[in-house]
């Protein structure tokens, strides 16, 4: 008996690698595509659409099955996990992810270049130019199909501000807005604005907090022509100074931001109850966060909540909104069923399927031809965001965005814990980011 155990052990340890390597594709049978969703609301929305897609494919005589993999993850957990899966060749065929993840994954060669597929697809012509431009990577290829557009704005509790007697018109400058925030804080004795910052919020600190502010300063941050990042500029300094000013004045909920899951006490408790009435946030706040089926519903959200554009930070600039932060479908470069996988992504990004997802998440359409479809056409806040998209500022994204994002998280964290002022954070950001990027990606 022991003999057999020994042999079995030795054999298995040696042979397993060989066995695992020879899993072949099955020709002829039904094609199965796996689709990964890492946010519950998106998974729920897509789940309902899958049978329709399968039926549509069957009508074309193609036997395609879609297996939905739902794995609810935070952004940084997703980043770690999908990188590992793609690296080890165990990733799903289609991956639905935040646009900021695409660059790093595409760079490493994990995602399929979709250029040819998109060129042959009539739907692509209907995409807004800003969305297309953002989807294109530094090497000139497009590795993801955006299926929503987000517009970053400043959300505020209209009912609360009016109750406190605070002006709700569009603030022209940050000084203007800070004056109002101080007035609120003076009355409530609590922080008044949530601007994602620090490491606990992960990628949100970058895409919902830092980047939208830098993008409006007019300073070049990422130059797509040279593929390099400019790590110190007037705009960056002004941005760090702003974080410092907000922190020092007690306007940011510093303790909450430093906790794990900083969104829970802020976006899901204090904003809904009205004690933290101003939040920098993407379009999805309308549904995903505060909608009737959202994480923390606010009753009558359409009337209680409204948005401002970002006020001007640097003299000579105007208030603006920022596009970006929407999700996109990426296709695993190693997929055995590239055509079917791309077809799934395209189908989900078209017509009624897209309209329903947009409403479930709370995102603007990245393309024309959706605004008159049920149920999207009945969502004034989303239609309004789609309108804004056409004039919004692009948030710069390029190779190395993950690293710059990490540096921004660290630098804003230094401000939160009181270890650095604006200038200190700006310089530690510049050296940190340069370290993480390596020489090739930093502008001289």
């Amino acid at each position, binding site marked *: 008996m022991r*003999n057999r155990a020994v042999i079995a052990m030795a054999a298995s340890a040696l042979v397993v690698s060989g066995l695992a390597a020879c899993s072949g594709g099955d020709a002829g049978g039904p094609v199965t595509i796996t689709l990964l969703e890492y946010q519950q609301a998106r998974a729920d929305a897509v789940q309902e659409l899958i049978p329709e897609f399968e039926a549509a494919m069957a009508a074309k005589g193609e036997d395609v099955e879609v297996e939905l993999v739902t794995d609810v993850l935070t952004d940084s957990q997703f980043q770690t996990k999908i990188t590992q899966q793609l690296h080890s060749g165990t990733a799903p065929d289609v991956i639905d992810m935040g646009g900021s993840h695409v660059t790093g994954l595409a*760079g*490493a060669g994990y995602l399929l270049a979709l250029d040819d597929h998109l060129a042959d697809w009539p739907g692509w012509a209907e995409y807004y130019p800003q969305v297309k431009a953002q989807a294109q990577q530094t090497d000139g290829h497009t590795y993801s199909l955006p299926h929503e557009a987000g517009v970053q704005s400043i959300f505020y509790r209209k009912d609360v501000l009016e109750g406190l007697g605070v002006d709700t018109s569009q603030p022209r400058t940050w000084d203007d807005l800070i004056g109002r925030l101080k007035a609120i804080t003076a009355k409530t004795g609590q922080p008044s604005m949530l601007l994602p910052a620090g490491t606990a919020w992960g990628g949100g600190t970058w895409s919902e907090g830092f980047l939208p502010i830098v993008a409006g300063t007019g300073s070049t941050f990422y130059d797509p022509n040279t593929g390099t990042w400019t790590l110190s500029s007037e705009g960056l300094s002004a941005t760090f100074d702003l974080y410092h000013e907000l922190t020092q004045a007690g306007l940011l909920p510093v303790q909450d931001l430093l906790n794990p899951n900083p969104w829970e006490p802020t976006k899901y408790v204090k904003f809904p109850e009205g004690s933290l009435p101003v939040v920098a946030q993407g379009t999805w706040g309308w549904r995903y966060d505060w909608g009737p089926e959202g994480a923390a519903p606010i009753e009558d959200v359409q009337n209680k909540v409204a948005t401002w554009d970002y006020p001007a930070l640097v003299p000579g600039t105007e208030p603006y909104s920022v596009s970006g932060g929407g999700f996109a479908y990426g296709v695993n470069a190693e997929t055995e069923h590239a055509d079917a996988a791309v077809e799934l992504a395209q189908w989900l990004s078209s017509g009624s399927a897209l309209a329903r997802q947009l409403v479930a998440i709370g995102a603007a359409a990245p393309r024309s031809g959706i605004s008159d479809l049920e149920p999207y056409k009945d969502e004034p806040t989303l239609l309004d965001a789609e309108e804004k998209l056409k004039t919004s500022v692009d948030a710069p994204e390029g190779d*190395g965005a993950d690293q710059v994002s990490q540096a921004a998280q660290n630098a804003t*964290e230094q401000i939160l814990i009181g270890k650095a002022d604006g200038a200190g954070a700006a310089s530690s950001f510049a050296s940190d980011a340069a*370290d993480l990027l390596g020489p090739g990606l930093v502008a001289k």
Partner: protein
Amino acid sequence: MTSPGAARVRQGGNLALLLGPSVLLIGVFVVAPTGYGLYLSFTNTQLTGFAARNPQYVGLDNYSYLLGSDDFLESLGHTGNFVLWSAIIGQTVLGMLAALLLGRKWLRGKGLFGAAVLLPMVVPEVVASLTWASVLSPRDDGTLNRLIGLFGAGPVAALQEAPMLCIVVVNIWRGIAFAMIMFQAALEDVPDELVEASRIDGASAVQVFRYVTLPLIRGPVFLYLLLTTITTVGVFGLVYFLTQGGPGAATQLTSIYIFERAFQYSQIGLGSAASVILLVVLLVLGLTYVRLAKVDV
């Protein structure tokens, strides 16, 4: 020690068959990764970004980067502090206290007290972290805040305001039992007559411990210190669960630094180099341990 008949036994095939599986398992899953890590530490291997497509040999770049990086050196400092305060001081003092007290002949309820002290060691580290997350909760009704409330102190967000202290306390809590078990074993070798005689001669309990007991158990105590140092350097989950290294990098132990570099920033080469540095430190400690332990083979 030596088995008299062993030499007569036909070896060769039998030996390979018996020891082979062990060698294979340890070789493939423990030794090979260590060697592979050494190799990776000389490359700029990444998991994402355009640089991931062709990793290159970069010589000692990763090492010179790390030794000049405040973040890494700080993480070593954090690990050093963590070991010093939680393992060398906290666990040792409380473990010795528990061992001495539970050794008192007149003490009733030894089983109950002993079980209480053992519980933190027996539960998985994730549960340990979870229980402390509730104790340290910043809410008014967190266990710690209720406790200090009894003394009139206001609620604190302990994990933000004193993060290092928190993880030190948690690790002390988890390690008292192991120290206690080790010291109980050592104390068994201290003859009771000696202690009794000193007491009759008028020595106080503290003096007895200082001049009679301690010299006799110095060897085992030193070995324990070395061993607990080594295991404490390896702590990851307990702290990662509670703070993920934050706030800022206040609780970023080297183990967490390595995890973040390798899997959050995808810098495999750099993470591997940090691993190698940690490994060298531990091997030095480990060799000292093996030599001093005088284990019999």
